[in-house]
């Protein structure tokens, strides 16, 4: 075997180790879209609460009747649209590589993310029920960030940083009560968009 063959051989080993243990079908562009959905959702929430008037005035407080329901519906719609977009675009990307999206690597990733995600989701629901609305934006950012850091072992290493930044924003959101929506927009909107562009540029 000459030099080239040997290096190729080692390349095959590396690529198999990575392909088998990391889920790399997540589309960068889907992250950008998901960020856009988050910003759209946040704009709807902003308009509902603050109206079209000048910045300083609120039309409503979040605790007013009906507002919470409206915000929950918007949030659930954003979540559903994001999930559908993420799954469909991952499936398309996997198909191009002649793979499927349900494989040992994606299972490991989902399992690693599931515990923090479900905990955060349930905690948010409990907080809504108990009326601690000021904590929601922070809690969602924190637990989503934790889920990303956990899941990042099984996908692009950039996901780890996305998670850590979200955790940071979640903590900051607690320090500045009343600005939850802005932190939420920064975390779920802008961070997703920036992350998506980086992954798209780098790997696609």
């Amino acid at each position: 075997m000459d030099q080239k063959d040997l290096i190729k051989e080692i390349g095959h080993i590396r690529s198999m180790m990575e392909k088998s243990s990391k889920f790399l079908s997540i589309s960068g562009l889907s992250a950008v879209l998901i960020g856009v959905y988050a910003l759209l959702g946040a704009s709807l929430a902003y308009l509902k609460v603050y109206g079209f008037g000048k910045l300083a005035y609120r039309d409503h407080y979040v605790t007013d009747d009906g507002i919470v329901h409206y915000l929950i519906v918007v949030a659930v719609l954003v979540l559903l649209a994001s999930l559908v977009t993420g799954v469909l675009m991952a499936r398309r990307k996997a198909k191009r590589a002649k793979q499927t999206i349900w494989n040992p690597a994606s299972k490991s990733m989902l399992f690693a993310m599931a515990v923090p995600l479900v905990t955060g989701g349930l905690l948010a629901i409990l907080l809504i029920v108990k009326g601690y609305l000021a904590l929601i934006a922070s809690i969602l950012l924190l637990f989503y960030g934790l889920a990303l850091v956990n899941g990042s072992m099984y996908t692009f290493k950039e996901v780890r940083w996305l998670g850590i930044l979200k955790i940071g924003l979640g903590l900051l959101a607690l320090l500045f009560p009343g600005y939850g929506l802005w932190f939420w927009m920064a975390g779920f909107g802008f961070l997703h968009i920036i992350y998506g562009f980086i992954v798209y540029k780098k790997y696609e």
Partner: protein
Amino acid sequence: MDLSLYNKIFENRLRLQIMSILMANEFYDFSSLKELLDATDGNLASNLKTLEKEGYLTVEKSFVDRKPNTRYMKTDKGRKAFENHLIALENLIKQQYK
């Protein structure tokens, strides 16, 4: 030049790749291996058999939703053999730089 670590078993591309996958994962099932390696059932099965006979992997058969599910795991012997083979490849590359 010590080539005693070089392992003929891993001269076969598919066997080398199977072992690479088992090194990076605790276990892997037959259909996932097949998808990832883009191999035929027969080719994959016969090479898995060779690795099993060498004692490099163990097989665990079970049923998931009443469909047979076969999982493969590396053994300590297999891990050692693979690591030695990597060292041999590394030595070969180093030697050619001299």
